[in-house]
């Protein structure tokens, strides 16, 4: 059991929950793991006590104690986010700032995006790559007047920081003016759903009109009287919403204020996962990793036009050649009937030949049917292609469909 738990810790809880276990085994392992983890320095976010108070079922996720669901359950919480608004604690994610006049050139050496074109307040999704063209992490980068703000995955923070430090030393040795700070005193709250804007509007200064704030932009604002909050219009649900980077000593106050609105319910990791999957968004470490390239992962759109012409990022040769010549496998969306095909399930051709694997799968609360994401051989990647999904030894008919599974409602300024 001990060895299993040690492995579990690294593989993260998601994997564990997706494995087929006796009914209560999953819950029991979580509890035992919790006890075992106490010595392994599992971190708590500033909102830990609030989560417990709200009835959150706490689990270890990427080394952080976070709620996987509250008393309402995942489906209700998921649907509430789509119809009203939900508050997620995403403080486990890493927040990094880059300073110095060469910060853009430095970052462009590590990511595929056109960072130079970002005007202050503008942000975008970008990918860190490795020498082989594999995806090291995904990150939301926003530009401010004199720094770049990055949000990276919790499970990758340590690796990303080490990677950036290594290249920082090289950049400095070349005389570049760039510095990096890991923001360890900030929490991150995500307010997501159609009522996010009307809710947040109550707590921003009178001169700030959120109806004029475009999707994927960021402002440093006083929120609910708390100065120095970075508010970015983005999220991981397919809905309109905001991620608020708040000084940790004020995180509970801000969360409580937002939750005092009738439209806002607390939501946890379980709903976050089903929401992002419906929105067709990748979960790093599952739908994308060091061995998948942006082209295979259907994330070519993150590679800026200028970057495709100039290269200059890790793995650029591989990625640019793949954009030109194609790849042998691609990430696709799949719908089926019957049980959800989850991570690891085989994808078969109609003739029963293995053509790929599922990387994420769940029951879609919005569509009331199973949805999956996975990689298939390119000839089977076209929308409308019939394939088979193997779940517990039974093959079931499935179809390659367009993602997002549920139409996104990202905000457009009227």
């Amino acid at each position, binding site marked *: 059991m001990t060895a299993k738990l040690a492995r579990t810790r690294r593989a993260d809880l998601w994997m564990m929950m997706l494995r087929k276990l006796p009914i*209560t085994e999953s*819950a029991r392992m979580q509890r035992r793991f919790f006890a075992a983890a106490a010595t392994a320095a599992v971190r708590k976010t500033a909102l830990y006590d609030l989560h417990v108070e709200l009835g959150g079922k706490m689990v270890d996720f990427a080394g952080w104690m976070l709620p996987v669901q509250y008393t309402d359950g995942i489906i209700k919480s998921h649907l509430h986010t789509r119809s009203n608004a939900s508050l997620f604690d995403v403080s486990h994610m890493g927040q990094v700032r880059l300073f110095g006049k060469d910060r853009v050139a430095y970052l462009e050496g590590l990511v595929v995006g056109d960072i130079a074109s970002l005007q202050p307040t503008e942000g975008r999704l970008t990918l860190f790559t490795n020498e082989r063209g594999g995806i090291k992490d995904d990150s939301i980068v926003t530009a401010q007047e004199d720094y770049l703000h990055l949000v990276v995955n919790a499970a990758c923070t340590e690796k990303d920081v080490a990677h950036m430090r290594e290249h920082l030393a090289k950049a400095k040795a070349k005389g570049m003016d760039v510095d990096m700070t890991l923001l360890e005193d900030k929490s991150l709250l995500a307010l997501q759903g159609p009522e996010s804007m009307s809710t947040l509007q109550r707590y921003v200064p009178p001169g700030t009109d959120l109806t004029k704030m475009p999707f994927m932009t960021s402002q440093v604002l006083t929120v609910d009287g708390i100065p120095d909050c970075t508010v970015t219009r983005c999220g991981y649900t397919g809905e309109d919403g905001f991620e608020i980077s708040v000084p940790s000593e004020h995180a509970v106050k801000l969360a409580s204020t937002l939750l005092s609105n009738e439209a806002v319910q607390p939501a946890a990791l379980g709903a976050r996962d089903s929401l992002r999957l419906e929105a067709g968004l990748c979960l790093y470490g599952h739908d994308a990793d060091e061995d998948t390239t942006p082209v295979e992962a259907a994330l070519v759109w993150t590679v800026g036009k200028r970057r495709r012409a100039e290269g200059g990022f890790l793995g650029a040769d591989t990625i640019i050649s793949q954009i030109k010549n194609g790849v042998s496998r691609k990430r696709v969306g799949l719908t089926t009937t*019957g049980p959800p095909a989850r991570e690891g399930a085989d994808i078969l051709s109609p003739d029963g030949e293995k053509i790929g694997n599922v990387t994420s799968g769940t029951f879609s609360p919005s569509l009331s049917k199973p949805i999956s994401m996975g990689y298939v051989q390119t000839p089977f990647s076209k929308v409308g292609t019939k394939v088979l999904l193997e779940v517990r030894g039974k093959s079931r008919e499935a179809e390659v469909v367009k993602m997002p599974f549920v139409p996104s409602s990202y905000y457009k300024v009227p």
Partner: protein
Amino acid sequence: MSRMLPVRLLMRRATCAAHRGLFVVGRPFSTYYSKSHEWFKVDGKVGTLGITNHAQEQLGEIVFVDLPDVGKSASKGSGLLSLESVKAVGEVYSPVDGKVIEQNGELSNNPKLVNEEPESNGWLAKIEFQGEVSGMLTRDEYDQFVKEEAA
């Protein structure tokens, strides 16, 4: 369960309770429980299999029941069917050697019934079995086991 139930369900519950009452007068049933959180209600050589209320609470909202086909052979201690919630898959074990003679077809359209009425209308399958039921717990023993497991 503190949740409000639709009237239709409440009525079905009432009917079910009435039925149970009648049956109990006629012939004795024995319901056994397992440490893997199944219940097994025996009537002669046929037993009805389901999961306990505690099990459904642990599993969360059930979205799919992978019902076993009629005729499928069941072997003691082996997985007979799976229950899927949004994030987890729960395996239900057969408490006896035998064969499935009926599945609860209503669960195909309404898997939530396992959450709502786990120990009555949310039954999963009926198994015809040979021999005696052994190695299972009484209700009191099971309740005690759940308490200990939680500690």
